């Protein structure tokens, strides 16, 4: 990992920048493999419960707001584009551009979370929070809650990852402006970029699974 001086020098235990960069990238990919398994447990839970209760899942997904979900998908994929442009600027060693694109990514990421907040509020108002106060039109079976348990666990964990990602991006902005990142050493930008895209990939699956499946019956 890069140290504080500018431009970040080679860490003492590496022979050259290539070795340092390849180690950082591999480390980040292994971390993402870990993340895949982490979310994988939730996706398995979704699969099992949807198989057990297809009708309740169709009922649940029809309670979600597709236009808001669609808007958020566009925002998040857009933030992936700005993120990859930040990484590209880092590869070319353009400090101000890195900061600019990271700023854009943070703006889009924040927008996503604001919309998510409105959606959560809407669920609250309509008694769709699992627990004692849960109520849904069409059934009194408590198993109907499973969809919303998973909705909140999956989107909540995803939102938590975005908050961590925003924190990491905020940490990169002053470093970028200070000129810490060079064409040889921009492992932090590259690593956070990979993380941000991963969070995007998770949403790419969450959006159809939660918002869209079961709509064709309505």
């Amino acid at each position, binding site marked *: 990992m890069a140290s504080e001086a500018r431009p970040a020098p080679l860490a003492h235990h590496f022979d050259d920048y*290539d070795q340092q*960069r*390849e180690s950082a*990238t*591999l480390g980040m*990919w*292994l971390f*993402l*493999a870990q993340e*895949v*398994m982490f979310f*994988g*447990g939730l*996706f*398995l839970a979704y*699969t*099992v419960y949807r*198989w057990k209760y297809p009708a309740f899942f169709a009922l649940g997904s029809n309670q979600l707001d*597709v236009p808001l979900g*669609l808007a958020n*998908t*566009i925002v998040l*994929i*857009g933030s*992936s*584009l700005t*993120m*990859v*442009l930040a990484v*590209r600027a880092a*590869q*070319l060693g353009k400090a101000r551009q890195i900061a600019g694109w990271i700023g854009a990514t943070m703006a889009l990421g924040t927008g996503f979370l604001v919309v998510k907040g409105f959606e959560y509020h809407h669920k609250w108002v309509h008694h769709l929070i699992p627990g004692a106060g849960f109520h849904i039109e069409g059934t009194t079976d408590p198993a109907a809650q499973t969809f919303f348990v998973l909705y909140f666990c999956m989107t909540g964990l995803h939102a938590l990852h975005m908050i961590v990602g925003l924190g990491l991006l905020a940490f990169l902005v002053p470093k970028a402006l200070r000129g810490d990142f060079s*064409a040889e050493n921009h492992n932090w930008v590259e690593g956070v*970029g*990979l993380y941000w*895209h*991963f969070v*995007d*990939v998770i949403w*790419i*699956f969450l*959006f*159809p*699974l939660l918002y*869209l*499946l079961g*709509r*064709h*019956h*309505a």
Partner: protein
Amino acid sequence: MSTVHVTPVRTYLLVFFALMALTFLTVGVAHVNIAHHLPGQVTDAINDAVAMAIAVTKATLVVLFFMHVWHSARLNKIVVWASLFFILILFAFSLADYFSRGWLGVPGK
């Protein structure tokens, strides 16, 4: 291996627009009962399959281009495949239990 590959901006924009197109496609197709529009007996799950196929395509685009796996070291590709393989194990063997419940006439099994 020694030099970083810098992808042209045009490639990123193309990927972005492809992702947008697929997003609208999956929303559009979600409201259509595909099985009704196909000849013969088609399972209702065809909608799920189409949605997942689109999601997998989108995720692949992100992983290959935004995450640079296309130009990445072979080892990083192996890590991606390995994580997919192990998630497959988790799904396959857990679902093997759920789907085979009641196959044999053993009470409670």
